[in-house]
């Protein structure tokens, strides 16, 4: 449960799904570490006791780490996915941290799966 996101990345947390529920179960990831994803692209499918939902990507970038595997229960507000962001600083409101422009786009992120 340690929030050990890479220093240059940006971690997206499970949003409140608006049903008064405090957790959701990951049905299926639609991306894998290393994948490039655009803002608003489908990111992950989750289910609650009431419904199923698709969560779109809040940012454009490269997926660095998934914090929960399919079938895992994730609390609202818990880390869901970490991105390495692309684009100009400030391009993704609400997300802290950007990759410096002069740095080559090599990954330096651990790719081990979540240990659960």
């Amino acid at each position, binding site marked *: 449960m340690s929030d050990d996101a890479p220093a240059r990345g940006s971690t997206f947390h499970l949003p409140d*799904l*608006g*049903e008064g529920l405090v957790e959701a179960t990951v049905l*299926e990831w639609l991306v894998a570490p290393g994948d490039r994803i655009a*803002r608003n692209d489908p990111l992950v499918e989750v*289910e609650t006791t009431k419904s199923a939902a698709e969560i779109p990507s809040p940012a*454009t970038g490269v997926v660095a780490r998934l914090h929960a595997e399919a079938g895992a229960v994730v609390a609202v507000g818990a880390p869901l996915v970490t991105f390495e962001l692309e684009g100009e600083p400030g391009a*993704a409101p609400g997300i802290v941290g950007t990759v410096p422009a002069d740095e080559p786009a090599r990954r330096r992120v651990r790719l081990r799966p979540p240990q659960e």
Partner: protein
Amino acid sequence: MSVPAAARGTGDFGKATAMTDSVLAGEVPLAYTAAPGSGTPVLLVHGFGSDFAMNWERTGWVRALADRPVIGCDLRGHGRSGKPHDPAAYTPEAMVADLVRLLDAVGAERVDVVGYSMGARLAWELALAHPGRVRRAVLGGFGPADAFAGADLDRLGADEGSPFGPVFRAGAALPGADLAALEACARGQAAHPFRPDPAPRGVPLLFAAGDRDDLAQGAAVLAARTGGTLARVPGRDHRTAVAAQAMKRAAAQFLAAGDETPGGRAAHGGSPGADGAARTA
């Protein structure tokens, strides 16, 4: 799921959100949405106990269909629409009449219709009664079996034994649910069980469901009998299949096949079906 409007990028997603924030006046007011755009519109019909936002918006369908004009409503008894408490107000005929009233109001002559669960049954009935208004139909989470078989219609909240029990309870647990309206809807629908004959004529049908969906049993048989297409989503049940990429892709490809115009929307990436959309388990 707050996605700030800033940094919208290419603008490709400008139509990716839709809300039933318009109201069609009438004896039973209908909350609806109708996005402008070119091409054959898609009418989205949600399932029992759900609403437009939950069935289509949160599940990513509106995003997946963003290149088409999307029309949808909260069915009577659901969401922000009127909620009569009389089961007679919930016959399939009355609910299909709402859909026709909506199509007329927004000037949609002919649409593709996508329905899930009870919405699929209504899509079937719409195509049957008004074949000229429906180009293609996607029937999700739906089969020929009576969805209310074994259901205790007098004590739905305590129905543990039938496949419909969990569907009712999930709907009843949602914020804003009107229990009396939902019970009336269940009774009104159950009083008119689905009959596979006659089938809609001249309207290509896609049956799409999770392979663990109890309420879609017999979909393959119905697809075969109607000359329809079948898409199964591996590992998904009635509640979770609706959000599956495989189902949205299968539907989008099926509807795109109705676009006959040269240079029209080919399925991006080429070979339809090659990406697993229609994995037949």
